[in-house]
């Protein structure tokens, strides 16, 4: 962890200038519980994310962080409480679920690019078939985002020909092509070789600079310190502590948080 925090701190990020809305709620999770059959994985989750906020969720493995963000675009179903995304409450109604998913991008730990499609096809599939955008326009948008993640020259290759870091940047670009208002990151750098973590984090930082509403599950504490305006610590399916990064890292309150931080920051 430590060597990565050094690499990202080099960059002087303009977080102070980023606007967080006071009134516009992007995601509202109210009294949410989830069970895997009898196992109570998420317990009484309450989380309000304002438009433009950048939230990092940390915690030991098995604490329910991934499950929580996967509930936000209904890759997982919750059993109790409410989840309201962009004003739409997630229920079993498939139409609502698709409405929410169109507006919420997600980046996975293992990239999950479509291996049988070229990079460009990966990026244009959903804009063409979900948004109904003409192919030429979708391709122009795709190239724009590929340039943004700095790999336009890979457009006609297949995912299997790219390095892990490049694949993850493509995955981010693929989400951005849908012009989402919220981005979810599920441990985006955990499956990468150490040399490739930085290139992915840089893309995420530049997204944050543009004011994207982001929730990141990550172990990159350097990234959290630099980009987040709130850090949430979870354990055993519950939110244990949350604070701004400054206070979270320098002055943790809960015993469990202190133990966690002492174990990962050495």
């Amino acid at each position, binding site marked *: 962890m430590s060597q990565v925090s050094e690499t990202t701190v080099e960059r002087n990020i303009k977080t102070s200038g980023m606007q967080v809305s006071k009134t516009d709620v992007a995601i509202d999770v109210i009294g949410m519980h989830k069970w895997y059959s009898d196992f109570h994985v998420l317990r009484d989750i309450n989380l309000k994310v304002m438009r433009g906020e950048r939230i990092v969720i940390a915690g030991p493995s098995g604490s329910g962080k991934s499950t929580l963000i996967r509930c936000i675009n209904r890759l997982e179903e919750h059993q109790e409480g409410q989840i309201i995304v962009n004003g739409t409450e997630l229920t079993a109604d498939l139409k609502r679920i698709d409405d929410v998913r169109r507006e919420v991008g997600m980046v996975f730990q293992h990239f999950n690019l*479509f291996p049988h499609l070229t990079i460009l096809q990966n990026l244009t599939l959903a804009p063409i078939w979900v948004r109904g955008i003409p192919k030429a326009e979708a391709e122009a948008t795709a190239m724009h985002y590929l340039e943004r993640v700095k790999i336009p020259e890979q457009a006609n290759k297949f995912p299997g020909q790219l390095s892990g870091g490049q694949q993850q940047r493509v995955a981010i670009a693929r989400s951005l092509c*849908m012009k989402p208002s919220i981005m979810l990151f599920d441990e985006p750098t955990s499956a990468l070789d150490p040399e490739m973590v930085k290139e992915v984090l840089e893309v995420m930082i530049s997204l944050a600079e543009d004011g994207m509403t982001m929730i990141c599950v990550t172990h990159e504490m350097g990234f959290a310190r630099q980009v987040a305006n709130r850090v949430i610590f979870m354990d055993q399916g519950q939110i244990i502590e949350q604070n701004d990064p400054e206070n979270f890292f320098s002055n943790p309150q809960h015993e469990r948080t202190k133990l966690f931080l002492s174990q990962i920051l050495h």
Partner: protein
Amino acid sequence: MTMDLGFVRKEFVPSKPAPGRTGGPILWAQKNLFSTPTDTLFTVIGILFLLWAVPPLYNFIIGHAVMPGGTVEDCRVEGAGACWAYIYARFNFFIYGFYPIQEYWRPNIVFVMLAALIIPLLMPTAPFKRINALLFFVVFPVVSFYLLHGGVFGMRYVPTEQWGGLMVTLIISLVGIICSIPLGILLALGRQSKLPIIKTLCVLFIELWRAVPLITVLFMASIMLPLFMPAGTTVDKLLRALVGVTLFSSAYLAETVRGGLQALPRGQFEAGASLGLGYWKRTYFIILPQALKHVIPGIVNNFIALFKDTSLVSIVGIFDLLNTVQSASSDIEWASPTQAVTGYVFAAFVFWIFCFAMSRYSLWMERRLDTGHKR
């Protein structure tokens, strides 16, 4: 003993060509045939076996065979090989069955259309795929049916009882293959469904058809079914066999496809879902192309089995290729010691040609579809 642990490379090692292969047939033989005493023993046994088996085979098929143009007397000569003259004389019967001779032009047109449409369809680089597919899957079956069946545009009516030979074998296998693909895929998807009724129906269907031998299905279709049907209604015998073969094959195909669906990582479904693609779009664009690609060998295996299983329709009195060969083998006019054997060798060869072509095509397709995502 002191050792210097420090090491700094001054210059990179340039890449150099791999050591050349030491070749030559003698070296190859030494390495592959005679490298150990056991190898040598097996090589000698193998050579002896070939010396024992090949000359009689050669003599039967070519050396002592009676070629087209020969007579039945030649075939009756002691020690004569395969009676190809008989195959040549009965060739039309093996291709068309009892189809009226003066109407052969109708199946011929169908054969030509089939070749003209299926070859470009199977070549990925051929243009006009959409029109080609439309012609092959929609226009071709309709036109073929009316051509073969007749009764329209002044064409003589030819009942399906008179259809036969390779023509019927191809009809059953093509219809079976083409109809069982969509059915099999839908059944496989249904079996994976979260909707309990659909899932149960698909499981029941698949397990029922898989648990019953094809012969039973054909018997049921041709003997039992008419008993249940109201008097006076008849369903064509060939049609019943077609439906039976198709449903039977689709149940097997469903399980093959399900194997492919299960091999896909969950992340592919999730990535599609997170982009807002609904179930059918996700399935069509992301899941099926990958799942089907994984199970090409299994699917082709099913098709080859189906192609060969079409010969079972002979037991319900349909004259497919094998049945025509079998019934011709009791033809007195060509009665000779090798008559039946020659017929079976011919039938086996025709089946082999088609199955081998399918197998080679699928291997080629697999390589072509490989986008190198395997690690």
